[in-house]
């Protein structure tokens, strides 16, 4: 094997013809290269390697001539592949710039999207997508990210009502540095900022504590952005290879026609189920399903895939192990063993004690119909689960009564650190004021205690001394002691299977 780490390779086109070591190109570029080598459609990209990062520091913290040349030829490759041009007045190219160290570490600079946008390309995007709002918004998002991440400006957000020159003035005032309009200058500043973030306080400290070599360096991945909002044969979406809530082995996803990725996240549009894609573009749908299978097989885990369709052509933007509910974690681990994808030991590794604890949390019995119970108060469900007890309005009293073995529900207008000792012993916590970010909500979730917040001023005052049941999923304070079930491992066939495997070891 050639020693690529010291081969002086400072840049690579990620076209799938080879799969370079993660040490050299970082995790992000590695996953792009891997998808390409599997024959999957990924927007064109290139990487500045960790060797370039080391060279950058040897060169006193400036990009060398040969790095600049590599960036130019990398961009030329992307321009050729996309038939777009960085800063172009027609079909402009926008790119994303991401850091990617071989191992993930804290404090590394993240991602700048929409790089390459300026007044010229904004106008071109407006005419290409037919949406000047979208073009302007892309411009704004770029300025925000560039200001925060590259220029370290304290500005958090820019007003959508203002125009780009006003944004630039505001940013320059805040940090005495300007957002360049020239795309190549934007690019070199972003690359420099990523390399510099390798020596940020948190990253350095982390490496020292973890014994990671400071010379490892980070790579920078530069990739074409694709547009899901150019016409009716474009769109964007997210696909899970299995249902992330239940774990059922049925692909689950959302799709938005003629939209960009941010639209799904921002909630400005309501996405439709992935089946819609099958109806309007059956060929693309089938290609996506095949890709999903390939990615799950290769990743040996449930995948969360971001994709965009640009004028009828599918692009996979990212595939990663999917976030999943505890129930889905258990079911998918067991079923993947049955499918022969992973072994029992791996299934056991994939389910944490914390996930099992969450699954076995007490819940209102399925036999209780909240509609036919007396609802004494209702608020925002802030921590799930169920519990019953006698209502007390003071943390000290809660402690005293709980010490006698009597279950209590702590009721407060709001909570503060003075109430925490009462929350420890309570079966549930309810408050009159506050939302899902309030102290009561935060501490209850931390303790795994069911909690309802914001029941309304005075709503709980008359209830002291009553026995109630708290439904932390629905947000109901119900009269009397209702049936609360403690889920048993045996009741869940997947959990039972896992336990049997664990016992057999």
């Amino acid at each position, binding site marked *: 094997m050639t020693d690529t780490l010291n081969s002086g390779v400072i840049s690579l086109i990620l076209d799938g013809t080879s799969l370079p070591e993660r040490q050299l190109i970082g995790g992000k570029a590695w996953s792009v290269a891997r998808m390409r080598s599997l024959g999957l459609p990924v927007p064109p990209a290139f990487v500045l390697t960790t060797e370039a990062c080391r060279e950058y520091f040897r060169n006193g913290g400036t990009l060398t001539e040969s790095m600049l040349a590599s960036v130019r030829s990398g961009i030329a490759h992307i321009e050729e592949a996309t038939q777009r041009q960085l800063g172009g007045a027609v079909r402009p190219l926008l790119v994303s710039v991401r850091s990617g160290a071989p191992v993930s570490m804290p404090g590394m600079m993240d991602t700048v999207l929409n790089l390459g946008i300026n007044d010229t390309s904004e106008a071109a995007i407006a005419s290409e997508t037919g949406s000047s709002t979208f073009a302007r918004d892309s411009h704004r998002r770029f300025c925000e990210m560039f200001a925060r991440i590259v220029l370290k400006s304290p500005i958090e957000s820019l007003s959508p009502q203002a125009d780009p020159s006003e944004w630039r003035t505001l940013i320059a005032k805040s940090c005495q540095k300007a957002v360049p309009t020239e795309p190549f200058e934007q690019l070199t500043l972003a690359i420099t900022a990523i390399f510099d973030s390798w020596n940020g306080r948190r990253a350095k400290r982390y490496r020292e504590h973890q014994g990671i070599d400071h010379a490892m360096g980070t790579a920078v991945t530069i990739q074409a952005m694709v547009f899901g909002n150019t016409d009716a044969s474009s769109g964007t979406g997210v696909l*899970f290879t299995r249902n992330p809530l239940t774990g059922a082995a049925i692909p689950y996803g959302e799709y938005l026609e003629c939209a960009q990725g941010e639209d799904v996240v921002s909630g400005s549009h309501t996405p439709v189920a992935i089946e819609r894609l099958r109806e309007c573009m059956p060929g693309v749908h089938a290609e996506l399903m095949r890709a999903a299978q390939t990615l799950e097989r290769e990743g040996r885990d449930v995948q969360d895939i971001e994709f965009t369709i640009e004028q009828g052509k599918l692009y996979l933007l990212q595939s990663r192990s999917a976030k999943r509910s505890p129930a889905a974690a258990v079911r998918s681990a067991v079923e993947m063993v049955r499918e022969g994808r992973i072994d029992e030991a791996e299934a056991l590794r994939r389910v944490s004690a914390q996930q099992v604890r969450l699954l076995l949390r007490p819940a209102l019995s399925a036999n209780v119909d909240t509609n036919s119970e007396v609802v004494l108060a209702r608020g925002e469900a802030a921590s799930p689960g169920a519990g019953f007890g006698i209502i007390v309005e003071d943390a000290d009293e809660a402690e005293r009564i709980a010490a006698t073995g009597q279950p209590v529900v702590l009721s407060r207008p709001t909570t503060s650190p003075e109430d*925490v000792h009462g929350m420890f012993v309570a079966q549930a916590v309810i408050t009159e004021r506050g939302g899902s970010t309030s102290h009561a909500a935060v501490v209850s979730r*931390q303790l795994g205690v069911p909690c309802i917040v914001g029941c309304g001023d005075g709503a709980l005052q008359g209830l002291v001394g009553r026995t109630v049941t708290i439904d932390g999923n629905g947000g109901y304070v119900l009269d009397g002691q209702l049936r609360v079930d403690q889920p048993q491992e045996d009741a869940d066939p997947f959990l039972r299977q896992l336990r049997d495997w664990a016992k057999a070891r």
Partner: protein
Amino acid sequence: MNKFNAMHGLAIKKFASAASVADLLAGNDIDVAAGLEAAVAEGQAVSAKGAFMLSPKGHTALAEAYPEAFKALRTDKTLLDGYAQFEFLNGEVKQLITEWQTIEIAGEPVPNDHSDSEHDKKTIDRIAALHDRADPLIRNMAVSLPRLVRYADRLSEALDRVDDGQIEFVSGVKVSSYHTVWFELHEDLLRLLNRKREE
């Protein structure tokens, strides 16, 4: 004065050892212990198993002492301006802690079981970015009240532990987590400036 300071620190900590009250106040253990013992002697605090707690009498005495003790601070412009900005950041901290505890899966809020380290890392990075703004703010308030610097240090210490993988230092209730220290600072400022907590 020792006794008053020690009682103020204890009021924030609620039930704590002299050492942890001293840490909060950036004071020394012996002075704080002496202050707390003096409070116990006057029936303003009770002690059990090496930990102290204010008595109802102590709470009343403290509330009565505040206006005079904090008179100058309550009109101190540096502190008041800093507090206004702190309240603004406080909203963001609460939001971030909530996102740390609850994640969205397929549009539904689900308790974060911390099995997705990438998601956790992103949230931690955002807390660290917020800390980069909070740190100079706290240090600036400390121009008026030097002991507040200790909060900036304790918040950094919590973040360092989180970076080292001890994720209970984000919002753990039993440790000096970022959330715990932040909340103590909030409580301290509310008492200093005679403000009421919103929720």
